[in-house]
């Protein structure tokens, strides 16, 4: 006959084992017919064993969740990175195109100049000089904008942002692209907007994302137009980006902010543009909303908290 007192040590061992993380520890429970402890204590032992069992299983599940979560976070970081690279690719292509046009003009003029000199066509020579000057101006504007972009990219801290200037600058790199697609851009920028406080590169990323979405939505359509409007409300600065594309279907309104939701073909859309944009807006204490709009076309509003003067 085993006495209850004989098994205190065992009971304590279980408690110590569980407390120190050894979740595989179990109490020995006498089999039927074997001399054992009192029936009631045996039930406690069995209960404790079940508890230990449950604890162990929970821990295994928790570890599995943690692994999945780590994996998810890694994947998410990779996706954000690839979205950034996609944006960079878009930027590089845009810059290439913006630079090629003025370079072409300059290249042809230079090639023609000796002939013009020989022909003593002074009028044409002066005209060439004017056109080359214009071309240099265009190229310089692209480079100026790129410089702003590069400067902003290395700074992560927040600063005062002139929203109107940023909207204007964001368009510079895509002006040629929008023009060849026959897209009209209407800028309606309010005077005397209060500055906002934020990370310039991120705010620019949001504006660029929305403009590129609008561009893709209106490309190939009649009267393709993108309107960018800035305005002020008590305590807030607003940027509205509206296009004359097909708009967002009512049943898709909620989905468009979801990661990987895209209506574009695989090579054109990562499905992360709006997700990332919304995250950025939230980090700035602002919002990104899709308006209920008439007539059809998508209309997004960015709302930033205005900085106290």
């Amino acid at each position, binding site marked *: 006959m085993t006495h209850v007192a004989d098994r205190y040590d065992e009971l304590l061992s279980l408690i110590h084992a569980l407390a120190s993380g050894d979740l595989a520890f179990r109490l020995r429970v006498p089999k039927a017919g074997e001399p054992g402890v009192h029936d009631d204590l045996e039930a406690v032992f069995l209960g404790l064993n079940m508890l230990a069992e449950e604890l162990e299983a929970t821990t295994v599940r928790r570890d599995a969740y943690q692994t999945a979560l780590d994996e998810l976070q890694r994947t998410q970081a990779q996706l954000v990175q690839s979205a950034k690279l996609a944006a960079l690719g878009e930027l590089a292509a845009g810059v290439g195109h913006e630079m090629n046009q003025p370079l*072409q003009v300059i290249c042809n003029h230079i*090639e023609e100049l000796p002939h013009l000199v020989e022909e003593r066509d002074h009028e044409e020579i002066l005209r060439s000089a004017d056109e080359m000057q214009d071309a240099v101006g265009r190229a310089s504007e692209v480079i100026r904008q790129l410089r702003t972009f590069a400067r902003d990219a290395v700074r992560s801290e927040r600063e005062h942002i002139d929203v109107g200037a940023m909207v204007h600058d964001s368009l510079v790199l895509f002006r040629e692209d929008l023009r060849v697609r026959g897209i009209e851009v209407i800028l309606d920028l309010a005077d005397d907007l209060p500055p906002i406080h934020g990370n310039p590169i991120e705010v620019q990323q949001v504006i660029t994302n929305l403009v590129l979405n609008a561009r893709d939505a209106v490309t190939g359509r009649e009267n393709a137009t993108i309107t960018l409007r800035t305005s002020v409300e008590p305590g807030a600065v607003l940027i509205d980006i509206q296009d004359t594309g097909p708009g967002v279907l009512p049943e898709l309104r909620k989905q468009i902010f979801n990661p990987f939701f895209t209506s574009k073909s695989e090579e054109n859309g990562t499905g992360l543009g709006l997700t990332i944009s919304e995250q950025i807006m939230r980090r700035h204490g602002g919002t990104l909303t899709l308006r209920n709009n008439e007539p059809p076309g998508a209309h997004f509003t960015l709302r930033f908290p205005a900085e106290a003067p």
Partner: protein
Amino acid sequence: MKLLFVDDEAPIRRIVQRGLGRSGHEVILAADGEEAWEQFCAAPHSFDIVFTDIRMPRLDGVSFLRRLRAAGHEVPCVLITGHLPKEQWTEEPGDVLAFLEKPFRITRMLEIIEQIAESA
């Protein structure tokens, strides 16, 4: 030689017309694919070669080329491109005579025209 030059940048059109004209070529100009199609259809069999930019408003260069081929016109075409290398061209290879990368020289255009003249 009579050629059709399609580009949406007015200064480039003017210089190319003058430069090639100096070598005795007749250069018809168009600012986009639609205009090019109209110009071409006005005298379909008179053109010896077409130079067209790819990125243009209304109708781009590749669509214009497709329209030409679909209508059975076999006029040699040169695509002017800012970013599409020849290796990335996935259409019928025979449809394009050559790719001209921006920024291009007028002398390079003259070389291509000479090739056409020799093979004719």
